[in-house]
């Protein structure tokens, strides 16, 4: 068992094996995402009961919550990948960081935007300096920092190491920032709106949310893997197996 895991680990370290292994996973995640998102959207938007306080506006939750969760998960994933990359010098971890960075920025922006749209009818303003809003905004800046750093370093290996280091430092800081911002918020803003304490939702409301969360994660898996595969082809462009793979695709 352990031996098999070790072999898999070593195989994952090789871009070629990774490329061969993931072609199945891309389509699996892709179809799962399509299924979950379709079911979740229809269920959440059309069949879930309206909230007794917020009416129909609460349905933004079905986009907002999965986006916010994914935004954090992707950053932490980048931090873990950075750690693995710095310790074991795996090539693929930087491919992962390069692939998930734009997606992470996009879902963080989506979480901020959908939260703002949701805030208008429920809080009465587009932007409140609420604790969780601020920590998501800071998360966005952390993403931008790594993006700017990657833009500034031309040499590929150094770029990989620098962004791995930064992703690790950021990941260590995420919980600290989160808790300090929440502490700051609770001290300065006594809950004038009842949204920070979530009401216990009935299952007809949170089951579609669960489906949407699964759909978002499956979509992220599909997008990140596809981007990683494209990045591998780009980086290994001179390798023989890439040439053979391209020739094989042309032939079919």
């Amino acid at each position, binding site marked *: 068992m352990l031996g098999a895991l070790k072999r898999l680990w070593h195989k994952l370290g090789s871009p070629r094996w990774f490329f061969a292994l993931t072609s199945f996973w891309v389509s699996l995640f892709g179809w799962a995402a399509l299924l979950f998102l379709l079911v979740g959207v229809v269920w959440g938007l059309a069949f879930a009961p309206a909230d007794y306080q917020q009416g129909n506006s609460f349905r933004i939750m079905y986009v907002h919550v999965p986006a916010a969760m994914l935004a954090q998960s992707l950053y932490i994933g980048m931090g873990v990948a950075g750690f693995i990359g710095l310790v074991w010098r795996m090539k693929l971890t930087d491919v992962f960081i390069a692939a998930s960075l734009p997606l992470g920025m996009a879902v963080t922006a989506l979480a901020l935007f959908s939260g703002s749209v949701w805030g208008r009818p429920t809080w009465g303003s587009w932007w409140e300096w609420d604790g969780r809003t601020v920590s998501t905004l800071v998360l966005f800046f952390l993403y931008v*920092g790594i993006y700017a750093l990657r833009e500034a370093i031309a040499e590929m290996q150094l770029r990989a190491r620098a962004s791995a280091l930064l992703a690790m430092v950021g990941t260590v800081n995420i919980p600290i920032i989160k808790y300090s911002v929440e502490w*700051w918020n609770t001290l300065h803003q006594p809950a004038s709106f009842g949204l920070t304490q979530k009401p216990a939702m009935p299952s007809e409301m949170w089951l579609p949310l669960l489906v949407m969360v699964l759909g978002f994660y499956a979509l992220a898996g599909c997008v990140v893997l596809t981007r990683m595969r494209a990045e591998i082809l780009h980086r290994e462009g001179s390798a023989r197996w890439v040439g053979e793979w391209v020739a094989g695709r042309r032939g079919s």
Partner: protein
Amino acid sequence: MMGSLLLREWQILRRAKGTVINPMAFLFLSATLFAIAAPALVTQQISQGAAAGILWTLVLLTQLLALDGMYRRDFDSGLLEQLLVTAQVPFVAVLSRIFMQWLSTGFIIVLSSPLLAILLGLSTEALPAMALALLLGTPALSLLGSIGASVTVGFNRGGVILALLVLPLFLPTLIFGADLVEAAQTGRAVTPQAYVLGLISLGALALAPFATLAGLKISLEMQ
């Protein structure tokens, strides 16, 4: 070894007084700008929280300005490389550099806090608490900032990227530092904030030198 490293840093500091004077001049100049641009904000006693916030924001920006040159001189002259290669414990070399950086900015800010308090209209009763907040909080700024400075030292114009990398990390220090000053002015207890500020600084002390070392190694290869 630590002693000779510190002695060297101290002599550099004495000879290049600009590294101390310029950031402080920036700090006082921008405090003056605030007082002129928004007199109601700082002269009336109603907005004590705003003055505390302005003070801490300016301290953050001053640190940012000073951090940009933190490793530049040694990096350009090649001394940094020699230091990391020859020092028995590179960790100590980095640590003494960070300590001197704090001594030349954070500590001076602590010493000049009474003047800043007068400029920004903070009440005099809150002065000890304000000095305490700065004393506990500024080491974290030097330590965390050192990570960003080490990664960006090889860039031609690293200033903006340094700000992007470092300012989010400063956020917890800003929150608790500003709240400590405000709490002291409104008569609330300040011990929780003081403990958290100390905790942040100690945590940064434990981790930042290693991250700085990794960042410096990356930058040296970039050269």
